[in-house]
C-alpha cells in the first residue's frame, strides 16, 4: 500500500497529538484496524456491553491511530470461524474474540493469517499468533460472597449459570468459599440454563430458586433479569454481573462486579502499533483494575462493607487468595491441603464444586 501525502499528514498528525505512540506510528501506513467479536448484543448491559466499553476506551485513547469494528451476536460454533476470517480479510491486524466458545474457530483460522494478532478471552488454547487474556472475576465473586454470607437470613443463595464451564464453576466456588468463611452453614444451589441470553428463562430460574428458600441471588449470565426478579420478590438482594446494573434494581443490587477491559485492550493495541506484540497469557484482576467492584448499596451495614473491603484490598495486596486450602469438595473430600494455593492452571480447569455447593446433576 503506497502512502499518500494526505495519509502521511493524517497519520503524522495523529502521532504528534499522541506522543505516547512515539515514532512508531510513522511506520504505520494506515490506521490499525482492530476487530472485536461479541457473543451477545452490545446492549445487554452486562458482559458484552463491558467488552464494547473496552473497545470505546481504545478509540478514546488512541483516536485516529486506530479504527475499530465489531460483530455482535456471533454464535459460539462454526459461524464464528466465518466472522474471524472476514475480519482478518477486511484488514484487521488485531482481533479480539471475547467469548470462551470462540476458541476453536480462532485456533483454526489464525494460521491462515500469520501477520494478524489474535487474542481470545477466557480461553486456554494458545498459538504463534494467538494470545489469551482473562480477568479474575472470581476475585469479585469472593467480595460478593462475603456480603452474601453476612446478609443472607436463610444462609442459602441461588446462582444462575449459563454452562458448567470452568470459568462459571470457579465463580460459584469462590462465592461459596467466601460466604462460608462468614457463615459455615452457607449453601448455594447453581442452576444452569444452557444459554447466555434468554431473559425470561433467567427470570423464571430466579423465581424457581426464590420459591425454594434462597434470599440472595447471583448470576453468571449476561443480563439483569435475575436481579429484577429479586427486586420484584423483595429478597435480601443480588449482584450486578459484568456492569453496574443498579438502574434495573436500585434497591436490590448490593454491589456489582464490573468488567473493565479497556486497559488491557489499550495495551495490546499499543503493542501492535509498536510492533512489540507477542502472544501473551494475561490474567488480571482487582489489582490491575480489570475487575472493579460497583458501589455498595446503602442497606449493606457498615461492618459488612468493612469485611467486603478487607476481602477486596486483601486480594489486591496479595495477602488473601480465596482458593487457598484447606478446601474440601462437595462430597467432603479434601482437595486442597491447608496453606496450599491452587495454581492458575488448576483454576482454569476447575470441574468440581467446593463444600457448600449443592451440585447440579
Amino acid at each position: 500500500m503506497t502512502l499518500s501525502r494526505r495519509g502521511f499528514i493524517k497519520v503524522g498528525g495523529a502521532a504528534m497529538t499522541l506522543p505516547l505512540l512515539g515514532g512508531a506510528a510513522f511506520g504505520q501506513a494506515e490506521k490499525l484496524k482492530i476487530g472485536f467479536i461479541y457473543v451477545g448484543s452490545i446492549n445487554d448491559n452486562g458482559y458484552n456491553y463491558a467488552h464494547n466499553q473496552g473497545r470505546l476506551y481504545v478509540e478514546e485513547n488512541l483516536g485516529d491511530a486506530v479504527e475499530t469494528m465489531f460483530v455482535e451476536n456471533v454464535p459460539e460454533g462454526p459461524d464464528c470461524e466465518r466472522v474471524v476470517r472476514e475480519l482478518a480479510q477486511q484488514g484487521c491486524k488485531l482481533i479480539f474474540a471475547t467469548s470462551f466458545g470462540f476458541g476453536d474457530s480462532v485456533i483454526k483460522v489464525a494460521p491462515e493469517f500469520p501477520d494478524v494478532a489474535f487474542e481470545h478471552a477466557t480461553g486456554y488454547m494458545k498459538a504463534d499468533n494467538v494470545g489469551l487474556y482473562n480477568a479474575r472475576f472470581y476475585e469479585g465473586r469472593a467480595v460478593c460472597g462475603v456480603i452474601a454470607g453476612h446478609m443472607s437470613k436463610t444462609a442459602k443463595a441461588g446462582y444462575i449459570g449459563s454452562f458448567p464451564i470452568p470459568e462459571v464453576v470457579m465463580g460459584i466456588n469462590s462465592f461459596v468459599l467466601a460466604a462460608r468463611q462468614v457463615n459455615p452453614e452457607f449453601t448455594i444451589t447453581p442452576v444452569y440454563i444452557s444459554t447466555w441470553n434468554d431473559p425470561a428463562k433467567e427470570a423464571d430460574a430466579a423465581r424457581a430458586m426464590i420459591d425454594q428458600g434462597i434470599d440472595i441471588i447471583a448470576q453468571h449470565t449476561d443480563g439483569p433479569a435475575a436481579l429484577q426478579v429479586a427486586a420484584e420478590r423483595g429478597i435480601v438482594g443480588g449482584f450486578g454481573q459484568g456492569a453496574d446494573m443498579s438502574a434495573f434494581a436500585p434497591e436490590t443490587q448490593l454491589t456489582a462486579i464490573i468488567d473493565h477491559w479497556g486497559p488491557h485492550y489499550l495495551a495490546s493495541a499499543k503493542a501492535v502499533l509498536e510492533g512489540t506484540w507477542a502472544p501473551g497469557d494475561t490474567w488480571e484482576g482487582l489489582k490491575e483494575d480489570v475487575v472493579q467492584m460497583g458501589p455498595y448499596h446503602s442497606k449493606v451495614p457498615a461492618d459488612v462493607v468493612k469485611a467486603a473491603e478487607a476481602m477486596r484490598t486483601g486480594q489486591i495486596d496479595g495477602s488473601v487468595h480465596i482458593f487457598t486450602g484447606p478446601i474440601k469438595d462437595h462430597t467432603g473430600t479434601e482437595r486442597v491441603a491447608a496453606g496450599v494455593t491452587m495454581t492458575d492452571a488448576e483454576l482454569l480447569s476447575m470441574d468440581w464444586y467446593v463444600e457448600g455447593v449443592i451440585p447440579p446433576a
Partner: protein
Amino acid sequence: MDLTIAILVTVVGASTPILIAALGELVVERSGVLNLGVEGMMLLGAIAGFVVQFHTGNHYLALICGAAAGMAASLIFGFLTLSLSANQTATGLALTIFGTGFSALAGASYSARPVTLMSPIFPELAAHPVLRVIFGYSFPAYFAIFMVFAIWFFLKRTRAGLILRAVGENDLSAHSIGYSVIKVRYFAVMFGGAMAGIAGACFPLTLTPQWAEGMTAGRGWIAVALVVFASWRPFRLLGGAYLFGLVMTMELYAKAGGGPLSAIPSELWAALPYIATIAVLVLISLRRDASTNAPACLGKPFMPSN
C-alpha cells in the same frame, strides 16, 4: 403446597405468551396459511410494547401497540404470500429474520432502561397464599384463556368461522360459491399477527421488565409446534400450552430444588416440547380419523385457474 402454588403461578406466566401466539397461529393455519414468522412478529410486538410502556407508562396501550406492530408485520407477509402468491414457508422464515433484526435495531437505544411489570388484576387476591393461583395474574393470562373460548366458539358456532374453515379445507370450493379466499386469509393472517404481537409484548410487560435483543428466545417456534401438537384445536392448545409451560418451568424448579428430577439433563428438558410434537404427529398419522388432520390447504398458495 406453597411450592406447588408457586410453581403453578410461574407456569401460567411462562405459558401465557406461548398460548396467545399459538392461538393466533391456529386461526391462521385453519384458514390454510402457514406463517412461520411468529417469532419475528413476537419480537416486533415485544419492542413496540416495551417502547410504548417506557414512554407512556400505560401497560394496556403497550399491549395494543404490540398487537399493532405484529399486525403490521403480518401484512407484509400477507401481501407477499396472498397477493403475490410467494412461498409461505420461505416468506415466514424471512419474516422471523426481519423481525429479529428490526427489533434489535429499534431497541438499540433502549438498553439499560427498565420498565415496570403489569400489576395483577385482583391485587388483594393476588396476595392470598392459595387463591393467587387463580387470581394472581395480570390481564394477558385471562385474555389468553378468554381467547381460547372465543376462538373455539368462532370456529365451531359462527358462520364466519365456518367460512374460514372452508377456505382452509378447500379453497377452490369456497371460491366457487362466492367467498373471497384472499380476503378471509388476510383477516386471519392479521389476527395471527396481532396475537403474536401481544404475545411478544408479554415478555417485557409480564415476565422480565426490560428490553433484550431476541428476548423471546425461540418461544415463537414452540408456539408453531404447539399448534401441530394440539392438532389445530383450541382446547387442546390450552392444555398443550400449559403442558409445555410446565415442562419449561419444572426444569428450573427441579434443578433449584435438587430433587430426583434434577438428574435429567437440561438438553433433554429443552427438547421435550419438540419430542412431544413429533410424537403427536406420529400418532395423528397412525389414525384414520381425517378430522384430526391438518387443514387440507395448509401452506398452499391460492391460485384459481381462471
